[in-house]
């Protein structure tokens, strides 16, 4: 819309016509207080805190509902306005308890700030306050009714934002109260509860301490924590989160998950896992000492030195005696890019094997190959918020990628984004869809082929053929279509869908996977047949400086098959539980030397000869890549005495094996042959890394334990990872595009190894099993008949 000019507090401002005065002022640095206004939600005008004086208008006006117009003259702070706000505060405080010294919100409470600012601490009310006891609506949502200032933010957040509508407002006047959807009289325990997604967005939006979270309430005060901005370790969305950390006797403990800077790819959002399920890190069952299996079969705690010596010696002997081919490596979906890259480099160059894989939750190899040679065809998570049209084929973002679902709902609500959903189940996002196509069970393959032009697949794709063809025509007519693809589509099907999408000029794609760094694991080459950046082994020149075997290695299942046949001398598992996930017979590993880096005694760890206690993603630094290919910085927040990062463990094992450390981790000066440096970077003998560092104004890293030394190498070598340092280090996200070379292998000729995690809203693989809060939520859920909102399933890995 055209810009209009107006004057606020004597300053000439401009903003697009229709902008709300409160927003227009905010973007010019003029802050107008607001309790009920929440950007992106519907307008409420319930609190009257935002009143301003607008010339030619008879009364004070609410800035949160007044759009700016040409020539408007506004005053935002005058004695008259201050008096009005003070009176509003006095009214609110009439029923507000003096809880600040104990309230969770104390120190970051909007009511407290405003009372301080307008000096409304005196009360003229002699009436007794309306008191009611606090209520526990769920294990994570508590309501302290007397603190509520009836701003309705929570009601709108839950309804409009979450599409859950679990909160309402009941009664009237000063006895009005926020009410959850299960009233006490209908509840078996005669207490009111919420039946909902437990996201905690209501708590986040509450300007005061009326809604508080089960994990954090009464634990600490905001100023007693350190606040570390990092990336959530749960699903593939990779939301930015701020962890509140406090020191304890054995490290530092995470006490709060919060979304306080709201600058991340997730905007305002965090789901229940991001907000509460950090507690696995504090679980008392964590392994904090290296364990080595004794001849009598028992696991005995030993020192790090002893454990690493032992692992190094065993791996070296087995490699030397039976060859790298006899060793298998399984990586993780939840380690950093640097760790994943280092792990595959270690496997390939130190162990001398391509037998490396990870639990794949989406087919990124086919995705990269189908998009080979294309530019600007992949979407960022940010695009889901702004794309004019979105097609979701398969998957269920509400459960698998709640951040994606939040963005899509916001887009539909605020930007009138058009959503199209094709799914074999009635997923919740169909409620926002312009058009929902119910596919036949297992109809994704036929649907992709139908879209690609094969009319014969129609009847297999959907029962309603007319709906199918209308649906296809509608999406084809979209010019800027964002196509979100669920993990159901793999290999040939995925390629067919992408080929169809590529016929739409403005279409962009994203493939949704399940874990924090599933995409990174694939991008970094935790694959038997691909080097990092989906570089095929055969004819590889990019990684020429590696000495890697040229034949593809064994994939995850083949590794265990080899073990069963007695052909696997050693197995190195980093942060993964394949034994349960893939139903591996423990017997098959009896002749294999097994090393596991883990936080907990999982089914896989229980079979190990050596268990090395690992730090999790909240306890280390590095970078991760979300499902979409958005790269973000991970910062160390928590700390646990006794554990080490996977990065450090890999480096130290390599060292104990006698590897050339500077070749593995480029640290220090002169990391490679320095013979030809004087003859320039192209000589082939030059220290390429050092030349590259110089060319990029970077210094050599001094420690082999510095993940950034590997980040340097990733940036230098991995196709597609031409990242912007400043963007990364300042904690911002950046979108990376896979840059796979044109496929040498025919897409789809490979075995389908994708196994979705099947996590529900309240499970999260191994982390979920050790999160008390998620267990409580699962239990809470089991108290009620299923609502269809959530499903309970316990997943491993």
């Amino acid at each position, binding site marked *: 819309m055209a810009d209009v000019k107006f004057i606020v507090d004597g300053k000439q401002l401009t903003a697009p016509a229709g902008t709300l005065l409160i927003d227009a002022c905010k973007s010019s640095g003029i802050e107008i207080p607001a309790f009920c206004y929440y950007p992106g939600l519907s307008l409420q005008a319930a609190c009257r805190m935002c009143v301003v004086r607008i010339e030619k208008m008879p009364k004070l006006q609410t800035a949160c509902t007044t759009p700016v117009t040409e020539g408007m003259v506004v005053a935002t702070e005058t004695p008259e306005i201050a008096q009005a706000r003070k009176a509003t505060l006095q009214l609110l405080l009439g029923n507000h308890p003096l809880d600040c010294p104990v309230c969770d919100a104390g120190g970051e409470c909007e009511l407290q700030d405003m009372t301080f600012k307008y000096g409304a601490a005196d009360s003229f009310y002699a009436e007794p306050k309306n008191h009611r006891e606090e209520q526990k609506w769920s294990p994570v949502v508590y309501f302290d009714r007397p603190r509520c200032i009836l701003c309705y933010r929570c009601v709108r957040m839950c309804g409009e934002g979450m599409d859950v*509508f679990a*909160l*309402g407002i*009941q*009664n009237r006047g000063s006895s009005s109260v926020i*009410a959850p959807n299960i009233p006490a*009289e209908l509840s078996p325990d005669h207490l009111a509860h919420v039946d909902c997604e437990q996201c905690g967005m209501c708590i986040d939006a509450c300007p005061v301490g009326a809604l508080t979270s089960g994990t954090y309430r009464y634990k600490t005060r905001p100023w007693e924590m350190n606040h570390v901005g990092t990336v959530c370790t749960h699903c593939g969305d990779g939301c930015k989160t701020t962890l509140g950390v406090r020191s304890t006797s054995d490290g530092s403990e995470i006490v709060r998950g919060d979304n306080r800077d709201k600058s991340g790819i997730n905007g305002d959002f965090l789901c229940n896992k991001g907000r509460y399920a950090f507690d696995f890190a504090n679980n008392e069952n964590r392994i904090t000492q290296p364990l080595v299996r004794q001849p009598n079969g028992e696991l005995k705690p030993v020192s790090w030195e002893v454990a690493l010596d032992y692992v190094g010696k065993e791996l070296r002997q087995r490699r030397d005696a039976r060859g790298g081919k006899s060793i298998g490596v399984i990586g993780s979906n939840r380690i950093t890019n640097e760790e994943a890259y280092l792990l595959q480099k270690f496997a390939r160059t130190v162990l001398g094997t391509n037998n490396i894989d990870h639990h794949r939750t989406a087919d990124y190899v086919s995705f990269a190959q189908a998009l080979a040679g294309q530019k600007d065809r992949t979407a960022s998570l940010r695009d889901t918020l702004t794309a004019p049209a979105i097609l979701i084929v398969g998957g269920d973002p509400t459960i698998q990628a709640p951040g994606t679902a939040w963005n899509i709902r916001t887009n539909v609500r605020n930007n009138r984004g058009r959503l199209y959903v094709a799914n074999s189940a009635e997923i919740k996002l169909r409620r926002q869809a312009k058009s929902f196509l119910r596919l036949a069970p297992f109809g994704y393959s036929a649907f992709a082929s139908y879209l690609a032009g094969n009319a014969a697949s129609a009847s297999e794709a959907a029962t309603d053929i007319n709906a199918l063809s209308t649906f296809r025509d509608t999406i084809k007519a979209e010019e800027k279509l964002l196509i979100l693809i669920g993990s159901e589509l793999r290999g040939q099907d995925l390629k067919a869908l992408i080929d169809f999408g590529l016929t739409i000029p403005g279409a962009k794609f994203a493939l949704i996977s399940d874990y924090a760094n599933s995409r990174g694991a694939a991008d970094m080459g935790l694959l038997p047949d691909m080097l990092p950046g989906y570089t095929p082994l055969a004819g590889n020149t990019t990684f020429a400086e590696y000495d890697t075997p040229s034949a593809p290695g064994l994939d995850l299942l083949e590794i265990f098959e080899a073990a069963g046949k007695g052909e696997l001398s050693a197995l190195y598992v980093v942060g993964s539980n394949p034994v349960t996930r893939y139903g591996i017979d423990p017997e098959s590993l009896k002749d294999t030397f097994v090393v596991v880096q883990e936080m907990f005694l999982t089914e896989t760890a229980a079979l190990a000869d050596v268990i090395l206690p690992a730090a999790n993603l909240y306890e280390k630094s590095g970078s991760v890549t979300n499902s979409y290919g958005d790269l973000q910085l991970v910062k160390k927040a928590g700390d646990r005495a006794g554990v080490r990062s996977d990065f450090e463990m890999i480096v130290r094992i390599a060292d104990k094996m006698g590897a050339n450390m500077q070749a593995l981790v480029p640290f220090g000066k002169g990391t490679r042959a320095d013979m030809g440096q004087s003859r320039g970077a192209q000589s082939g003998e030059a220290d390429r890394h050092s030349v590259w560092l110089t060319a990029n104004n970077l210094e050599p890293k001094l420690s082999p334990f510095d993940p950034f030394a590997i980040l340097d190498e990733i940036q230098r070598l991995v196709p597609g990872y031409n990242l912007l340092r400043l963007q990364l280090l300042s904690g911002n996200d950046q979108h990376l595009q896979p840059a796979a070379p044109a496929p040498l292998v025919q897409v789809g000729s490979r075995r389908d190894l994708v196994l979705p995690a099947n996590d529900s809203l309240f499970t999260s693989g191994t982390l979920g099993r050790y999160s008390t809060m998620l267990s409580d939520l699962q239990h809470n859920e089991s108290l009620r008949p299923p609502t269809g909102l959530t499903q309970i399933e316990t997943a491993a890995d």
Partner: protein
Amino acid sequence: MSEIANTIFSPELADRFDKLVTIYPLKRSALVPMLLYAQDEVGYVSDAVVAELAERLDLLELDVRNVLSYYSMLRTKPAGRYNVQVCTNISCMLRGGYEILDHCKHTLGIGHKETTKDGVFSLEEVECIGACCWAPAIQVNYDFHENLTPAKVDVLFKMYRDGKGKDEK
């Protein structure tokens, strides 16, 4: 035939509701009249009423409760056979409304929004019932009684107890 299978309402009321939901531009606008009619028939707004109205109007039960709790004439517990509503708004107050209320409390032995043990009377203090010219006034079910004194109230209560009241339920 009712639009809802196994409706809890009488066939006449069910028919009326079927029609009511069609006459507003927004279906949910029919909620308040439906609540009132349902209360008249069932005696109060029970959980079953909430559930059926929500179904009829495509609302969540929570939405129905939100509206229901706003209006003090709607009740969620059964009232007595005669619901005595005593006005204490300005005109009645000036002409002895509180005296009438206290008298009712005393004679019936119950307070605001309570019901006598035998279930015959319930009592409510209400805002203006539109009978200011003849204040103080009370309303018993849909029946009005004006220009009251405590003595007149005693006569009224006896009349109702003897089953001679007008608006019988």
